[in-house]
Structures are given as structure tokens and as C-alpha cells.
């Protein structure tokens, strides 16, 4: 049967084009791959190849024709043994083929915002009442979390710069090499992009890597693998394979290390579907959340803080202690204002709450603990009670987590707000080195107190 040669789409955006030149004439024999015409698209002049062998039976669109719509028949090809007389039998043009193929079926946003559901915060205790507690630094808690999970699961391993023989640049992996050996505690060369990629590949291949970045500032060299390779593969593969792994290390400002070593990446990673993002404050949370992260079947970003490493907290003595993601912790109950923070921001939030109490202002302090997923219910329930909210973080102000929370609260608890939400953040400047300027660039307790007074009209 004669087959039609259709005007081809030759770029992702082409709808019509100019049939600039025919390189064959009626009666010519062509084989697959032969260039039969030149077609001008919106971008360039393209060569158009035959995809079948046969004879050019009839040319339907003359050369020089402009505005020829994609999928218009431009010629008829005959197979062996057919003649031009058979052309009448050619099927009717299927100009609508592409329209059929691509119905505009987009998921649309609901026309009207649904009435927000009543929040159902889960404030069950993280460990049973009466559990024995011990005092531990965040550093020790993180180390114990890794060691415990490595004892349970032989596919868990740690890789990164100075994690093994040096015992960790910040001593978080202290003792792991001795217990687990160099097969599972692996010093890498200084090559973040490369070892992050190898870590993701190892996760595809059935292992559960813990990739330590000496700081998350250096992970910018590796961010393509974190986002394009680790976070997106499960989706791109239709659920066939993903990257169950943890990227961890200190994040945010330490002290006097200036612009390139002092950035908080919480908002960056929380932006990405496919990642989970944890930013713990206390040692108990660091332990319970890191164990949970190692067991999680997805890529988890675990943002630690150098200043918090040496801080001591009570940690439950339990055989198997994990904390689920997306469950905030209420550190302090209050009536007048909700202060939402996480990570090192909690030091300012809690300090501010103490001082505010002295002035008779009762602040409820919530530690989000995870930035993806976020426990919105706990935040909304608290705001419905206090009617005021201040967020506290060290990251930059534009597109901060605080901005996102403000929008969420506005959409879901607008009628409960007695004042605009205020975001306390780091300043909109690269981190300076000078001690006085550095202090000014970070969030301060005084700023949190000031913000609370603003929203409570004191």
C-alpha cells in the first residue's frame, strides 16, 4: 500500500515549516536514511531523511512552500510493485495525529481553597516515661547512631574525607574504623563531586551509604548528584530504583570561618521533592533521627552543626531508639506566642523564651526537627492557640523556611492570626569574618525577643 510522507516536526517547538527543497523527484528510488528534502524550521534548516525504502510516487507539496503544518502529507511513497495509479488508495491524512497524542490533560489547582482541616498534632513522647537517661554530646550521639545501625545492617557503610584514620574532621566518626574496619569506614580523596556520585551509584547497587561531607559548604560541588541523581531517580524510573542513603555533615555557620564556610542549606534541600531533610538540635534527636535516616528508603539530607557537636543533652538509654520524620517537638508550652525553630536556631528560641517569661510573656517553642516533611499540624495547632508566630533560623532571608511557614500559616490559620508572622533569619549578606560583623550577621536572641514583642504588641 502506498504510504504518505508527512511534514515532520524537527524540533521540540516546531508547528510548521518551509519545505525549502526536494532532493528527490517522482520516480526516484530511495532507501532508508537517504536525504529526501530540506526543511526550514523555526531554528534551522534540517535535512529530512527517508525512513523506509521505496519509490517516490508523487510529490504533494512543492518546494518553496511556506507554512506547511506538521503532519501534512508532503509526498507519497510506493513499495516494490506498486505504481502511481495506486495512490488513490492512500489512507486519509491523519493531521490530527499529534493532537490526539497529546490531550491537554493538566492537573489543575482547585478553584477555591478548601477549608483547612483541623490540625491533628502528634505530641506523643519520644520515649516511654521512666526510661533511663544518660548525658551525651551531639557528637557522641551521632557516632552511636551510626555504630548501632552498622552493627544491624552490613550494607551500611560510611565514606568521606578523614572519616576513618583521622577519626573524623570533627571527630563524629571516632572509633568507627576500629570497630568496622576499612571496608566499611572509607577515607575518600578530596573529591566531593566524585565520591557523592559513587555513593549514589552504590545505593543504586544495593548498599546503604552514609556520605559525610566535611561541611555542607563543600557539598555544593556535589549538589548535582544529590539532586539530579539521588533525589530524582525513583521518579524517573517509575519507582524501579532509588537511592536509600544519607548525606550528612556540619551545616551553617561555625565561628569566624567567614563566607565560604558559613552557609545554612536547610531551605535549599527542603525545596527538592524526593529528598528528606533533617536538622536536629538536641543529642537525643540527633541519635533518633540519624538512625531513622539510615533506615529510610530515600535519600536523606542530615544537617548537623559544628557549634552543637559539643553540647550535652539527656539521651534515652534504649535498645532501639528512633524518632519518626515529620514529628515536631514542643520544647516549652506557652500561651502568648509560638516560636518555631530547628537546629541551632533553637538555642536562640529557647533563650528568648526564658527571658520573655521573666517579662511575663509565655512563649510556646516548637522544634521542627525535620524540614521535609514538615509537621504543619503541630505548628498550626499552636498558632490557633497563641494567635501569633515568630520563626527563627540562621539561613538567608529570601525564600527561607520561615517564608514558607508564614505562607502556610496564612493559608491555613489566617483567621487565627492577631499579627503578621515575623521571620528571624540570618542577614542578607555573605558571612563576614570580623567578630563584631559576624555576630550581627547571625540571628540573635535579642532579635527574637524584639520580634515576639512586635507580634504581641508589647
Amino acid at each position, binding site marked *: 500500500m502506498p504510504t504518505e510522507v*508527512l*511534514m*515532520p*516536526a*524537527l*524540533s*521540540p517547538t516546531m508547528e510548521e515549516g518551509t519545505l525549502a527543497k526536494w532532493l528527490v523527484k517522482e520516480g526516484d528510488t530511495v532507501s*532508508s*536514511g537517504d536525504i529526501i528534502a530540506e526543511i526550514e524550521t523555526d*531554528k*534551522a*534548516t*534540517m*535535512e529530512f*531523511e527517508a*525512513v523506509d525504502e521505496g519509490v517516490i510516487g508523487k510529490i504533494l507539496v512543492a518546494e518553496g512552500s511556506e507554512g506547511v503544518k*506538521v*503532519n501534512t502529507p508532503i509526498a507519497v511513497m510506493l513499495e516494490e510493485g506498486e505504481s502511481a495509479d495506486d495512490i488513490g488508495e492512500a489512507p486519509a491524512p491523519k493531521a490530527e495525529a499529534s493532537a490526539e*497524542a497529546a490531550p491537554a*490533560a*493538566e*492537573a*489543575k*489547582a482547585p478553584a477555591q481553597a478548601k477549608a483547612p482541616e483541623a490540625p491533628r498534632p502528634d505530641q506523643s513522647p519520644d520515649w516511654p516515661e521512666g526510661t533511663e537517661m544518660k548525658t551525651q554530646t551531639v557528637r557522641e550521639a551521632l557516632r552511636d547512631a551510626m555504630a548501632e545501625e552498622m552493627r544491624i545492617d552490613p550494607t551500611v*557503610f560510611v565514606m568521606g574525607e578523614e572519616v576513618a584514620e583521622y577519626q573524623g574532621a570533627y571527630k563524629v566518626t571516632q572509633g568507627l574504623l576500629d570497630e568496622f574496619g576499612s571496608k566499611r569506614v572509607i577515607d575518600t*580523596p578530596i*573529591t566531593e*563531586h*566524585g*565520591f557523592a*556520585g*559513587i*555513593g549514589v*551509584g*552504590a545505593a*543504586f*547497587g*544495593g*548498599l546503604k551509604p552514609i556520605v559525610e561531607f566535611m561541611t555542607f559548604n563543600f557539598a555544593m560541588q556535589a549538589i548535582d*548528584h544529590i539532586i*539530579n*541523581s539521588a533525589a530524582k*531517580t*525513583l*521518579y*524517573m*524510573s*517509575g*519507582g*524501579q530504583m*532509588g537511592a*536509600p542513603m544519607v548525606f550528612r555533615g556540619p551545616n551553617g555557620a561555625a565561628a569566624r570561618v567567614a563566607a565560604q564556610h558559613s552557609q545554612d542549606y536547610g531551605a535549599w534541600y527542603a525545596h527538592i521533592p*524526593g529528598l*528528606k531533610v533533617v536538622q536536629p538540635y538536641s543529642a537525643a534527636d540527633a541519635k533518633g533521627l540519624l538512625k531513622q535516616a539510615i533506615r*529510610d*528508603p*530515600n535519600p536523606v539530607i542530615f544537617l548537623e552543626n559544628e557549634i552543637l557537636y559539643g553540647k550535652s543533652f539527656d539521651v534515652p538509654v534504649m535498645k532501639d531508639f528512633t524518632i519518626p*520524620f*515529620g514529628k515536631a517537638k514542643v520544647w516549652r508550652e506557652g500561651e502568648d506566642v509560638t516560636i518555631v525553630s530547628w537546629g541551632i536556631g533553637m538555642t536562640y528560641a529557647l533563650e528568648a523564651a526564658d527571658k520573655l517569661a521573666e517579662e511575663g510573656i509565655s512563649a510556646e517553642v516548637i522544634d521542627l526537627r525535620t524540614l521535609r*516533611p514538615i509537621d504543619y499540624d503541630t505548628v498550626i495547632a499552636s498558632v490557633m492557640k497563641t494567635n501569633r508566630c515568630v520563626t527563627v533560623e540562621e539561613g538567608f532571608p529570601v525564600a527561607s523556611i520561615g517564608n514558607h511557614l508564614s505562607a502556610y500559616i496564612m493559608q491555613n490559620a489566617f483567621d487565627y492570626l492577631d499579627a503578621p508572622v515575623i521571620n528571624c533569619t540570618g542577614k542578607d549578606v555573605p558571612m563576614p569574618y570580623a567578630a563584631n560583623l559576624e555576630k550581627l550577621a547571625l540571628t540573635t536572641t535579642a532579635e527574637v525577643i524584639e520580634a515576639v514583642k512586635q507580634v504581641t504588641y508589647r
Partner: protein
Amino acid sequence: MATRKSSAAAKSNVSADELKSYYRDMLLIRRFEEKAGQLYGMGLIGGFCHLYIGQEAVVVGLEAAAEEGDKRVTSYRDHGHMLACGMDPDGVMAELTGRIGGYSKGKGGSMHMFSKEKHFYGGHGIVGAQVPLGAGLAFADRYLENGRVTFTYFGDGAANQGQVYETFNMAALWKLPVVFVIENNQYAMGTSQQRSTSSPDIYKRGESFGIPGEMVDGMDVLAVKAAGETAVAHCRSGKGPYILEIKTYRYRGHSMSDPAKYRTREEVQKMREERDAIERVRTMLLDGGHASEDDLKAIDKEIKDIVNKSAEFAKDSPEPPLEELWTDIYADEVPQDGANVTEEA
């Protein structure tokens, strides 16, 4: 450390049946790609579509050197690799048309396709990113001590990415069982190798890491297979990575919308007429009396039917249901902003 150009003497001895199967496998890729180009022209395939026409002998030769369980990972010019490792043409073509019957349920497209069953780990859209990923797969195999080898394919263009050398270093340091396959088709999109590469012999770039390298004629499927066998034996014996620079040529543009003005039509025509890998095997089969014209016609017919069937499947398979927008983001249940939005427009 051996870096060498492989010679004809290193070629495998193959049976007539093997030769026929290589002919068949290469022809499947070519006809499949031609059909994909046709469907693209009809608007059934969208976005970027990078065809493998001309390079067929590379993947077919190397798959002949692979064993069950070996892994492969490549860039976005990936249709040939998928067909060569035994993935179903229907599923590949339906992914190209963005349908539910595709390997990624229509959510990955031409550049992002995977098959756990066939140990095909993508299909990656970022030039060079598959190189450490491939080394990571090999890292897992070494860790699990399962004796597997990973073929990590990348182009002469990707060979200039820094992460390739970060990976060479670690792969050599840790003796990872990975074959780095540099498919040198001589153009990084529109930039010829002469204009992008300071030293033309990419196979020598492993020397400073202690990785042996070999240059192979990629238009000769038997030479590719022989080199692949050498490389795989090296990796499997625990000696670490191996580099194969396979000289090949892509007949079509970089992607469907590339007019390919950076080279002459004569250059392409000369390759097709004088060096074509499929024609070479066809001639061997006929001249050696291993197959008759009719035998080959039967193979051609079989391939045509497979490809036509895949195109029909890819047209008939429905688009993914709108709920698919929200699946496969996490491997477990995770609440997401706006995840209830699936109403039809």
C-alpha cells in the same frame, strides 16, 4: 601499564549464529531509531531525542562480552543500550511517547529510562554524571563480592568533565570492577574532538591513574567484542578498572533538532558507505556463505515487525493516569504540599 590500539589479530572467533545475532541486534537498534525519528516527526515523541544510528556495533559488541548480572549505565543517548541488553522494544518506545506502558510509566522519557530486571541503571541526562554512578555500582559489587562488572558508557564530550577524573582516581585506588567505555563519535554535540580535546588519544587518559586503556574500531562489532572480553576479564580478576575508547560515528544530528552544519554531508555519507558496521557484518555473512540473501531478508522482516509492533504499542498505550503525578517521589508514604491536586482540567 598497557595502553594500546587493538589490532585485527585480537578479534574473537565467532560462529555463524553469533554473527547473525549481532547483525540482528544491530539492525534492531537501527530500525528502532529510524522509527523513533519518524514518530518524533509526527509529534508523538517530544522534547529531546538523541538517536544512536551509526554507533550500533559498540553496544552489541560489548553486550556479547557481558555475563548475566553485569550492569550498565549510560547517558541520554540510551535507546541502543537498552535494546542491546534485552529490554523490551515496546516498553522503550512507549516511554518515548510518554505512555503508561513505558519503562518509567511515561515519567522519564527518552533520556531517563531504567530496568532493574536487566541491570540497566539509566539513562542519565547530565553529561558525565553517569561516570561516578557507574563506579558506584561497581563499588557495590566489590563490597558485596558478587563478581559482577559494570559497563559505564560516556562520550568523547563527557570525557572532558572533571568528575570523570575524580572517578578514575577512586576506581583505580579501590580497584573497582568497572569498564569505562568512551564512545568517541567525534562530536560533542556540535564541537569536533579536534576543537575540544587537547590530546586526541582519550584512551591514554587513564595512564596517570594506572588504568589500562585501549582504542577500538567501533565500526567493527567483532573488534569491540574482543576488546570487551579483555576488559571484562581484567575487571573480573580483581585488577580494577579498564578504559575502552571506541571510535564510532553518529550518522544523525546530536538530537532531532540538530541540523548538523558542523560537518559536511560528504563526511557522513563516506562513513555510511565505507565503514557501516551493519553492512560489514552483512558482507561477512554473505561472502562467507553463512547466510543467503533470503536469510537476511527474513531477519529484516522480523526486525521490521518488532519495530512496527513497538510503534503501535507506543501509540496505543494510554497516557499515565493523573494520579501518577504524585507517585514514586518517595519509596514510602510522605505527605506533600498539594498532593491532592489530580483533577482533570
